[in-house]
């Protein structure tokens, strides 16, 4: 089996005085695609913010690519090879589409076939049409495309997508899913949050379900599909 790329072990995270994560753990192996599921407000985004060091975890351990990263500033964590498509897109409004991509570009880990602006444009032709526009003027879906493109431009070892298909048209959404399958095919590790359980079950290898800041279930896609009451209990389906 491939080596572990990311390991989160019993982290606890708070916003000010309110604790959100209560000893959450998860693991991603190299080349694996893992989904994080749970209802609104259960702590999915917080988990990701803790991994990235944006909202540092108060206790527990986080290892990425063999290094302990809890407590490191977020840029150092990102430099180790994590690319983030954050919730709410967070593109740079005062940069053009092209500048958003260029600012992010980098191939720190020496990927053999790195992403380029042209490849992003091929993936999202809409962005090519808007290349000189300011980020702030893009439509919601265009911003989402840009956020994905920007994360890819860092050529990460681990790609994290937090609701990356929110607000995308069905066709594009399908394209993103097939793009993710394609990336997975190339050995890209992915951590994904999405509400589309059907698609996740189809392409992700393993799943974690979060409930009130703890992982309450984990297993493979087959196991997930095999236990419909699980979905009912935790995801409300």
């Amino acid at each position, binding site marked *: 089996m491939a080596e572990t790329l990311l390991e989160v072990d019993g982290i606890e995270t708070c916003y000010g005085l309110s604790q959100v994560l209560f000893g959450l753990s998860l693991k991603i192996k190299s080349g694996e695609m893992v989904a994080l599921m749970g209802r609104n407000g259960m702590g999915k985004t917080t988990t990701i913010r803790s991994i*990235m060091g*944006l909202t540092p975890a108060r206790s527990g351990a986080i290892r990425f690519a063999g290094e302990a990263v809890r407590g490191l*500033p*977020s*840029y*150092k964590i*990102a*430099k180790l090879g994590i690319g*983030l498509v*954050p919730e709410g897109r*967070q593109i*740079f*409004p*005062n*940069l053009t589409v092209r*500048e*958003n991509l*260029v*600012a*992010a570009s*980098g191939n*720190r880990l020496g990927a053999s076939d790195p992403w380029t602006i042209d490849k992003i444009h091929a993936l999202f032709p809409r962005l090519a049409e808007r290349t000189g526009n*300011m980020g*702030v*003027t893009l439509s919601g879906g265009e911003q989402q495309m840009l956020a994905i493109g*920007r994360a890819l431009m*860092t050529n990460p070892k681990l790609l994290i997508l937090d609701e990356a298909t929110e607000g995308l048209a069905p066709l594009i959404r399908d394209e993103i899913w097939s793009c993710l399958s394609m990336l997975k095919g190339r050995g890209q590790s992915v951590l994904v949050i999405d509400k589309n359980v059907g698609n996740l079950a189809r392409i992700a290898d393993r799943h974690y379900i979060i409930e009130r800041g703890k992982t309450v279930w984990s297993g493979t896609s087959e196991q997930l599909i095999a236990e419909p009451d699980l979905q009912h209990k935790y995801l409300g389906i």
Partner: protein
Amino acid sequence: MYLVVEQLLNGLQFGLLLFLLAAGLTLVFGIMDFVNLAHGSLYMMGAYFAATFVAWTGSFVLGALMALGATLLLGIVLEYVALRHLYGRDHLDQVLATFGLILFFNDAVRLIWGPAGLALPLPAWLTVPVQIIPGVYYPAYRLMIIVVALAVAAMLYLVVMRTRIGMLIRAGASNREMIGALGINIKLLFTLVFGLGAALAGLAGLMQAPILTVQIGMGENILILAFVIIVIGGIGSIRGAFMAAIFVGIIDTMGRAFLPDLLRKVLSGAAASTAAPALSSMLIYLLMAIILVLRPEGLFPAAKR
């Protein structure tokens, strides 16, 4: 006719001097979005450093270079010790903190250099008037200010608008968290940019020192003009700041040159003498008010560049 040409040139030169000061502020305030009232103090420090180093070394150029290095360093230290904690904060917190720095620097300078102010003498080759068109002489040093300001404008525009560093600075100003999540050490970058801004303030201070002397509080009134320029031009727009600086310089100078005579035609002598300097100083603010009423985001709003 010569009078008008010469006054225009005075205005241009004054405007470009303002631009020099505004240039560093554009970086720190326009682009990094940090309201730094202490920019005027750095300007003052630049002048004091230059006067001190020029006196030590006996060379204008060498002393000026050392002063640039010193303000760069001072800016970096200031940022590292205090100001970096204020980036994400409300503008008004920044106002209060840097206002405190003004008070501090003014008294620190008085303690170190005394209240008298210093002189920064020019080398002989810069003190002669130059004939620019037949019959019109212009002080060589003022011409040099024009040249330096143009060079700074070009450099700044290229770095900020055309390089990846510039993009990162702009991106970091709008969303620090995200730029960190992309693997960029924004703290370090901002420290360096702040230092550069400080060095530019120092440059402005030392450039104007031979004309206006070196004294405590020299940065305060002119700082407001620098803010005026940046706002008229559109915050974050270097091109805007440049145009606005020239505009303000010329309006101000022309007002001082011609308004008194105009006023004397309508008012009594004494009333006109009192009113003229006040009203001509008012022109800049009138200009700013008019521009902002008509274009609430300045002449070149950064988003629509």
